[in-house]
Each structure stands twice: as C-alpha cells, then as structure tokens.
C-alpha cells in the first residue's frame, strides 16, 4: 500500500490548503492582487474559520491525492468568530503530533497564521510548504 513509487521527473506536489475566509483567504487574495509570485501547487478550500476545519479533512486529503496539507487561520486574538482559532490551535497541535507519531513525515501537514494584510507572508508560507513537500516526494503513507 505504501509503495515506494519513484516520482516522475516532472512531478509537482499537490497541496490542499484550507484557508479561513476572513484572514488567510483574504491574505492569499492580496498576494494575488499584489502580483506576488508563488508556486501554483496549492488548491485552496475556503472555510469560514480555521476552527471549522475537521481533522478528518486532513486525513482524507492525504488518502486521496494530496501530497501535503496546509491549514491557515487568523492570528490568535484576531479570529472573526472570537475564539475559533484558539480551539483549532489545540486540535491541530494534537493532530499533528499524532500523525507524525504514526509515521507521516513531518512537513506533510502544516499550519499557519496569516492575516488579511499578509500577502507576502502567505506566498512565503506556500513556497516553504511546496519546497518541503517536494523534498519528501509524493505522499506514500495513508494513501488509499
């Protein structure tokens, strides 16, 4: 099941990014408007809040073709729904620790705080994630 497949020379990682509507999605939008270049490997899913992201989405993404996952929300204290990102923070701390404990390579699952004004930061986060996942190769653990 976790077959070691040699990636084709032109393989590009597929990153699923869950971005909260009010901060991170807006930040990504700002990056676009500002014509900041960043790798096109992210597929963005807009959610109302990082706290809305069900940990099962992350696992299912890895099962069904995502080489990496990013979840991004508002900075602590700035959540549009006051505390959604605080709950998310606890949830994801444990999820990330558990996934890595099971053997999912560190760097597959990533989290960030990106505000609506941080277009530059968003592009940098994406660049980092794509680079890390590229080095890890195609997802091979938990792949269905």
């Amino acid at each position, binding site marked *: 099941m976790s077959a070691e497949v040699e990636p084709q020379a032109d393989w590009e990682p597929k990153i699923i990014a869950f971005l909260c509507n009010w901060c991170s999605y807006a930040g990504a939008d700002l990056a676009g408007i500002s014509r900041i270049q960043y790798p096109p490997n992210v597929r963005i899913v807009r959610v109302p809040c990082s706290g809305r992201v069900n940990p*099962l989405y992350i696992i299912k993404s890895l099962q069904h073709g995502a080489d990496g996952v990013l979840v991004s929300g508002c900075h602590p204290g700035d959540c549009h729904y006051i505390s959604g990102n605080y709950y998310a923070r*606890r949830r994801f701390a444990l*999820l990330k620790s558990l996934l890595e*404990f*099971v*053997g999912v390579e560190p760097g597959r699952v990533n989290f960030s705080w990106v505000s609506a004004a941080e277009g530059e930061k968003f592009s940098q986060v994406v660049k980092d994630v794509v680079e890390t996942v590229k080095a890890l190769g195609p997802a091979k*653990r938990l792949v269905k």
Partner: protein
Amino acid sequence: MSELEELLRETARQLLAEGSIELVIGYERGTLPLRTTPCFIRDPDQVERLVWNASCENNLATYLHRATGKVGIVAKGCDARSIVGEIVERQIAREDVVIIGVPCQGVIDRTKIEARLDGRDVLEADVSEGLITLRGEGFEETLNLGEVLSEGCVTCHHRDPTLYDVFIGEPSGGAVEDRDEYAAVQALEAQTADERWAYFANEFSRCIRCYACREACPCCYCAECFVDQTQPCWFGKGDDLSDVMAFHIVRAYHVAGRCLDCGACVRACPMHIDLRALVKKLEKDVRELYSYEAGLHLETVPPLATFQPDDPQEFIK
C-alpha cells in the same frame, strides 16, 4: 472469598434492598480460568455472585451509557475516572450513579500469561499473596503477579477511585512499580518516522475491524460512529491499510484528553494490536501541552473544549 468481597456483597445487598439503586453492575466469576465477567444484579439475594480480584479486567463504565434509572457500579480506579469523564460529558447524571469504589492491585494481562504458557492450556489459576499459580495438563507454574499485570496497571497512579459514594477496603497506595509510564511512547518517539510507520503498519495489518476496541471503551458512546457514517463516508470499512489506520488514528484522536489508559481497548482486541501506543502518546501530549489529566475532577473542562490565549504554538508558521 475475601473479606473485601464480603464487604462488597453486603454493600450491594444493602443498596439494592433499601431501593436506592435498581441495579448493580459488577463482576462475577467467569467460565474460564483467569476470567471474570460483567454481571447485572437487580435482586439483593443475588449479590453472592459478586467478586473482586485481579481478573476483574473489564471497564464497567462503558455499560452506563445504556443504563436507565439509578445504577450502582463497582469501580476500580480507572473505571471511576471513566465515570467522572462520563459525568463531565453529561452522559450520566451524578445523582444517577452510586459508585462502589474498590482498591486495585492491577489486573492480569492474559496475553502475558499466554506468552509464558506458549500454547499450553491453563485449566486452573489461583492468585494469592502476590503470586499466580497456573495449572494445566502436566504442568504447574507459579509466577509473580507483578510480572503479568497489564502494562497500564504497573505504572498507574490512580489505583483507587477519585470519585466514589462508598469505598470498600483499604486504599491501594502509589504505583505498583516506580517507572516512567511514558517510556514505551518515548522509545517510539526516538525512532525515525520510517521506523514508526513500519511498526504501526505492521500492527494495524492485523486489524479485522471488529470494533471491540471502540465498544469496550467508555469514551466511545457516539450514537453514530464516524466510521459508520455514510453521509459523508469518511473511510472505507474494508481491510485497506489506509482505511484501517485512519480508523485507529481518528478513534485515538477522538479520545484525546478523555482517555485515561484503562487498557480496555487493548484487552478487548483479539489481534493483540498495540493500541495503547496511540492513546498513551496523546495522553502524554495533553499532559505536557495543557497540564491536564482526565477523570480526576467533576468540575473540569475537557482540554479540547477550552483554550488558553498563550497555548503552545511552535508548530504553527
């Protein structure tokens, strides 16, 4: 029959006779050596069935979800903590349960016994004075009880109930053995991701999706388990390793901050899968990150139902 058992039976008899409870959930003698079995007693004259010994391995708290009316329950340390958890999570009302606390010396891990016997069939077993004598066709062997206790019991610091209405006998004292309860987790943490994946992939390759782990666990009471959902269908129900691991990862994750290492899951598993590795890791994380231990206080908020503004976040970019 021990003095403790006599006291236990008398307590149960009184509670039933005076009508303060309609049912006592406890343990009675099993049909196999080294087994007891859960029993449900409604008639005060039946309390003679109740026993209390190192074979009382099941976590009876799992039966409280289906109980109606006022129920008495025999509870060792971990079971009582599970009951605290169920009260905190509003699965039962405090006033609907009478906790008959018992001191615990640890429960026997039958897989350790099986390993020692290596295929030999045990026909009789006696436990006394910290020793366990096993008898079968053409053999008799005596072991130290300490050698065959459940791993979780050996390092347990809450052998007596943290919550009870009646406590039978003398308090148990500290852990059976003074060693780090997270040693096995740390050993795994010290390995590489590749090594850990190989270990867990091998362990879970034995899973037959019987859900004994889920059903034995007092925390698993969802009317519809995520794995049974079809709208949406999260994970397949077959033997695809990806789906099997997803089930176990998510089940462990769902009990994060609630699991108190009672060992019911790993004891129920017929395939001897190292389920404790996952839940113990999460227990360690919850303790280190949020200074929380499950099942100690009624006035508590589960760690994932709350937050601190300065929670750790080095993992976030």
